[in-house]
């Protein structure tokens, strides 16, 4: 393989069988390893398209300052791409995000501003919006509302899956911005509409839901709910237990949200006669090493990451 620069390595990730998780001999379960992207997460895809589109629209100049609310992965991807192009980047991130995220954003030249941990990603979004209102010079690409986010998955992730696994029946991904599910969901709606699109929604610590009022709630503007067939919440206990099992059973060192998708794949495999289920593994385990969740009891580990975005 030969590419002109690092951005040429974004996407084209491998699809790997993790069939030992299937309770049904007629169902195969596959993991799309987004951790194989240059900075180790699926977010390289959206960062690349958000920046490219913004450049084409004339929104970015060599000295532009990007500002982005992120729980880390998007910030790392943006930092990786922005510095080579001469843009500054400020990431607004919940203070509970794992230490590796701050380290990686900074090593790629990004800056980090923290938002209160118990407010979760909602808090980061609100703080970033406030900072942009106070300093209109910032350019906020805003992954939650940027059509380039689902667009990147429509153009790359969806076609990659169909090419590698034409017999795909189900697609499962974690629900964050909704960009992956929306983009891949629209791709299959246009190209293989019988594929079921299932959202694994991370159930967060109780305090994250402690809004002052329901009016402070948030549904990401890029999420197109019409492409989803099912949305199931998964708590950190189950996600961590399956993330641990992935290493033991299949040698897959994955991020915590990956465990949630495998749990749902197993649940789905029990209900259907046959099929090929694709789980999108948003990141690898590297950025969670400091949490040391692998060698301990899964329930203790789950408590440890309850307020950490995963």
């Amino acid at each position: 393989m030969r590419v002109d620069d690092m951005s040429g390595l974004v996407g084209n990730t491998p699809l790997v069988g993790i069939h030992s998780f299937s309770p049904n001999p007629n169902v195969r379960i596959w993991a799309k390893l987004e951790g194989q992207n240059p900075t180790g997460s699926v977010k390289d895809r959206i960062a690349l398209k958000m920046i490219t589109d913004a450049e084409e629209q004339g929104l970015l100049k060599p000295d532009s300052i990007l500002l982005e609310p992120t729980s880390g992965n998007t910030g790392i991807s943006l930092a990786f791409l922005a510095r080579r192009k001469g843009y500054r980047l400020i990431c607004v991130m919940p203070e509970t995000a794992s230490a590796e995220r701050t380290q990686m954003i900074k090593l790629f030249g990004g800056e980090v501003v923290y938002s209160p941990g118990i407010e979760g990603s909602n808090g980061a979004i609100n703080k970033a919006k406030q900072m942009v209102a106070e300093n209109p010079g910032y350019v906020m690409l805003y992954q939650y509302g940027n059509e380039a986010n689902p667009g990147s998955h429509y153009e790359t992730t969806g076609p990659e899956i169909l090419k590698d696994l034409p017999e795909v029946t189900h697609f499962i991904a974690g629900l964050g911005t909704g960009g992956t599910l929306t983009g891949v969901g629209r791709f299959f709606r246009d190209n293989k509409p019988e594929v079921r699109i299932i959202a694994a929604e991370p159930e967060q610590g109780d305090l994250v839901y402690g809004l002052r009022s329901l009016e402070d709630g948030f549904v990401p503007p890029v999420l197109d709910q019409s492409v989803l067939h099912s949305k199931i919440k998964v708590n950190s206990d189950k996600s961590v237990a399956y993330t641990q099992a992935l290493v033991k059973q299949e040698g897959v060192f994955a991020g915590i949200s990956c465990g949630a998708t495998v749990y749902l794949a197993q649940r789905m495999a029990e209900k259907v006669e046959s099929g090929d289920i694709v789980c999108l593994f948003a990141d690898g385990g590297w950025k969670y090493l400091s949490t040391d969740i692998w060698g301990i009891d899964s329930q203790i580990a789950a408590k440890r990451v309850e307020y950490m975005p995963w």
Partner: protein
Amino acid sequence: MSVTVNIPAVLRPAVGGSKSLEADPGQLRDLLGNLGEQYPALKQQVFGEDGGLHKFVNLYVNDEDVRYLEGLDTKVGDGDTVAILPAVAGGAL
């Protein structure tokens, strides 16, 4: 046996501080309607003026978002768990 209804922190003041309530099985609409009679403030917040679900409220039966089941017509059986959660941003973004 009955149905357990989990109440999020933001709605607990509306139900006297309880983290969860017990309800009778049936259609989700009736189940919540009955609770709403007991706790009018809960009903007022969960439902909009048109009687539909508040846009920032998610309802789950056994972890499945009912918007992708039969909505308020979803059947809730003995031993099932209903969860009410506000819609918030999440995930490793």
